[in-house]
Structures are given as C-alpha cells and as structure tokens.
C-alpha cells in the first residue's frame, strides 16, 4: 500500500503511536463506564438510578466528543456550533418538561390553598 501522505510515510513516531494508544484507551474506558452503568442498574437505587445513569452517560459522551470527535482541537466556530445546538436542546426540554411537571397545581400558592382551587379549563386561576 503506497503511503497517502508523502513525507509522513510509515515513519511511526512516538507521538503518533501514543495517539493511537489514547484512542484505544478511550474505547476501553467507554466500555468500562457502560459496564458500570449496567451493573448499577441491578442495584435498588430508586430515585437515584436515573440521575446516576445519566451522569455516566454524560461522562461517556464527553469521552466520545473529546477523544473520538476531537472536539477541543476543532476551530472555535465548530465548538460554538455544537454548543448552540446543545443549548437549544436543553431549552426545548426544560420548558416543555417544566410545563408538564407544573401543570397540576398553580404555583405561588401555598399547597393547602392550591388544593382547594380547581383549575379552569384554560389553566388560569378562576377570578
């Protein structure tokens, strides 16, 4: 196989080999984290199960982003584009989930009073 990059050729410098090793290690770390997440799912963590699983997912995602997708080596514009998309995802999720989560009772009222105040069909407080 002829070398694609003339000049770089087959010369395996130490730095290049180290980079390949880093990628392999990242892969192994990802599998380890997945294994951890899998194992934890058998424990009775109740309300903590989801946040912990998501936290591990965030750790895995950052590994993929920084090692495989070389996020930190990209130009500022690229990082900004990715970040903006993430912000929009969080916006959509936050406001929509907040709607469903807060629909039951009107806020800003003490619970005992809120329980006595039925909602009108429009979701507004009755006069």
């Amino acid at each position, binding site marked *: 196989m002829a070398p694609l990059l003339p000049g770089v050729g087959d010369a395996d410098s130490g730095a290049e080999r180290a980079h390949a090793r880093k990628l392999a290690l990242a892969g192994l770390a990802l599998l380890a984290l997945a294994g951890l997440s899998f194992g934890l799912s058998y424990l009775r963590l109740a309300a903590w199960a989801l946040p912990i699983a998501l936290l591990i997912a965030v750790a895995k995602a950052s590994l993929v982003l920084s090692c495989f997708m070389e996020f930190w080596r990209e130009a500022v514009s690229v990082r900004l584009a990715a970040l903006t998309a993430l912000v929009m995802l969080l916006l*959509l999720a936050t*406001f929509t989930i*907040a709607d*469903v989560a807060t629909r039951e009772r009107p806020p800003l009222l003490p619970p005992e009073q809120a329980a006595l105040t039925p909602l009108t069909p*429009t979701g507004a407080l009755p006069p």
Partner: protein
Amino acid sequence: MTTTFEPELRVVPSAPPRVRDLAREWLLTRDHKRIGILYFVATSLALALGGTFALLLRIEHLTPGPTIVSPATYDRLFTLHGVTMVWLFLIPSIPTAFGNYLVPLQIGAREVAFPRLNLLSFWIYVFGAAFVLCAMGLGGLDTGWTFYVPYSSSSPSAVVPTLVGIFIVGWSTILTGVNFIVTIHTMRARSVSWMRLPLFTWAIYGTSIIQVLATPVLGLSLLIVMLDHAFSWGLFDAARGGDPVLYQHLFWFYSHPAVYIMILPAMGVVSEVVSTFAHKNPHSYRAIVYATLGIAFVGFLTWGHHMFVAGMSVFDAGAFGVLSMLVAVFSAIKVFTWLSTLRNGSIMLKTPLLYVFAFLFLFVFGGMSGVAVATMSLDVHWHDTYFVVAHFHFIMVGGALTAWLAALHYWFPKVTGRLYSERVGMLAAALVSVGFFATFFPQFLLGNAGMPRRYYAYPPEFTALNVASTLGSWLLASGLLLALFGLAHAFLFGPPSGDNPWRSRCFEWRTASPPPAHDFEQVPSFELDAYDYTTPWPEEPPLESSAEEPS
C-alpha cells in the same frame, strides 16, 4: 444618465445558444447568482399562488354566508394559503433568493462554500413544493397550516402526502442554512472581518442559525403526525395517555422561530436600504448586529405564547409571556437605530425607501400588537380570533413582504443592470401600503369584536368590516401586479443603471452590475467600510442628477 454602461453585454451572447444548452446552463448551474434567480422565480410563483388563494378567501367573506365556495373548500383554501405562504414563500423568499445572490458578493467571495449542495437544495425545494401543491391540490387538506392534533391525525384529507412534502422542503431549508453559515465563516475576503460584515449578511447569518436548529424539530413533529395518521401510533392521543399540548410545544419550537426566519432577513434589507438612501453610516452598526443575534436567540425562548389557552401550566405560560416581550426590546433597538440613521441623513427618496417607510410603520404596528397578544390575560380574549390573524399578517406581510419588495427594487439594478421606473415603483408602493392597511386593519377590529379565525360564516353585523378588508385585498393585489409590471417592463426595456445607481458604499456594489461570472474581476481590498459615507471615495462615480427616466 451620466454613467453609461453596456447592459446588452451579457444579455445577448455572440452566437444564439440552443434552448437545451441554455436550460442546462441555468437548471444545473452552480453559480450562486443564478441559483438565487432560480429561487426568486420559484418563490415568486409560490407568492402568486398563495396570493390567489388569499383573494379567494377574501371574496368568500364578502357576504356572511356562502359566497363562492363550499365550507369544505373554504377549509382547504385557508390551509393551502397558509402552507404555501409560510413554507413555500415566506421562509425561503429573502434568504434563498437574495441571500444566495448577495451574501458571497457582500463578503468578497466568488461562491458559496458548497455550490453543489446549493443547487441540490434548490431542487429539493422545487420537488418538495411540487409535492405539497399536488398533495393539497389533488387530495385537499383541511387542518390549517398548524396541523394540530388530534384533528390532523384523523382528518379524512391528504395529511400524509402534504406533510411528506413539507418534510422535503425542510431539508432544503436546513441545507441552505448550513451552506450560509459555513460560507460566512470561511469564505470572507481577508479584510472583511466579522464587525465589517454588511448587515444583510449578518441577518442571513442569524436566520441560518434558526433554520438549522429549528427545522429538525418541525420534521420530528410532522413525522409523528404522519405515523399517527398512517398507522395510528397515537403518541398525542389523550385516550392512550398522550398529551396533545406536547405536539404544540414541538410545533411552535419550530414555528415561532420561523417567524424570525421571515423577519430577520427583512430587517437586514431594511438596514441596507436605510443606510444607502440616507447616505449615512447606521447610527449604531453594533447595536443592529447584537440585536440581530439577540432576536435569533430569544426567538427560541418564546414559543409558548401560542399556547396560553391550550392548557399549558400557569408557570410556563408566565415565563413565556415575559420572555416574549424581550423580542420587542431587540426589535425596538433596531427600529430606533434605523430612525436615527434616517435622521439628518441626505435622503434620496426612491421606491425601496418608500417600502421601508411602509415597513417601519406596519412592523411597529404589528410588533406592538404582538406585545399585546403576548400578555396572557389579553390573549385569552384574542386567541384564535381575527385579531391574531391581523397581528401576524402585519409582521409577515407588512414586514417581510414589504421588505421583500424593497429588496427587489433596491437590488434590481445590481442583478439586471437596468433601472426601473420610479414613478411606477412608487405608485405600486403606495398601493401596496394602503391596500395592506385596508385589508388587515379591519381584521384587528373584527377580532376584537369576537370574529373567530378559520370560520366559514360570520354574523351579519361583521359585514361592513369584512367588505372593507376584501376591497383592501384587491388594492393590495393591484399594487403587487403594478410592481410586477414595472419591474418586468424595466427588465426588458429599462435604461442601463450603471454599476452603482444608488451610490451605495456596501460591498456588493463594488463590482460591475450585473456582476461578472466570478463575481469580481479582481476581489477589491474593501479598505473602505461598507457604510462609510464620510471618507471620500476616489473612484466614486459622479452624482447622478436625477433618476427620473423616460419609460
């Protein structure tokens, strides 16, 4: 006419080309200027169609009862009108036609970053548009352009094919957005730094961000409705635990920012026209830039104000109500900047500026009514009435369409190398403005009096205002036709314009009009800022005595 150029140079080639060659040259072109013109033709056809539907709707409302169409046809007509205008005209109109033509010229590039992708996205648009129109023409659709569940999942009309078509058009929007973002980031001439970018390019940049990030969410919500209609997946079906309000969340997460896809490019046009015809630096370039980016961002935070009466939580509604008003802050920054740019400027009153005056009036009117409907308690009264219809037409027609017309006249000499007749142009502008106001102002009154939107019939006491609105729509249509006639006449017989008839300093005017195939014979240094009207410009052509020309 002090400057004389040879406009026939590129119109008539030495040997008449065969029709097939000409068609291939245009339809498979990768030249951003030609793609822009192709888009212009396609979106203008969509405007003509959507406008025709609107006229029919208005004629139907001449009398309280049946006038020309049946109730079922009426439902299909308003859906057709909405879908055509929103997705086939307003969203692509300024970014694709003018954006494609001008952004590379304004940043000193010879092309967009991905020319083949650009052509592909044009053909995706045409294919999707044809799909939508065929589906709705042959099958009919009666859900309104918002496709709200649960009705859209059970409506016995062509829901799935229409949504497939809109889905396809969405791809074109996304690809165009990607192309512009990358072009503006990577293709700028070395001296054109971010804070020297022309304001229209900034506007297209903000628009593209919205296009790229909002459109996929529309795609998803349409996909879910399609699956529901075709296979009864019922994800929003209350009987199966579903929540129809969630559909509205997804839909408006796209469709509210989509309003800014329509209005941001329009604002970009206004910034250019104001600066050129006041012959003056924008009062604050940075204020307009930051307000553009601010609107692009805040536009994503306000979608819930479409859903105040949908059963959303009071907490969310309150948050959305407050956030919605932020948009007005940024819009106001822009309006005041334009006004103070005009103040003490050496005004050259031409047709584009006249359209911009109309824009300023109508946009402020529509924007203020927008602040009013973003107020929860008021919206409960106005929701789903003609008040809302009037409000968003003031923004979309009064704002986006007048700016589109301003752009059309302003850059007409750039594209064709010819001058249009100011007399015809100004008459058309006056007709459009007055016609528009006569059409939609009565609708504010109707809505406030309680006339609901999308209803076939209305009580007889609403007749007078409805008739006024219909008459206004004829005035508006005749204005548009007159503008079309004026430009068509100028395209064929107009006198040569010279390279820079408006003596604009903006970057796109620093090449020949029409520009050569590769945009610039030699990319200029752009040492002089795009809006610097104080530094003398040695090569500037002498001042024209008058633009009144025989036609």
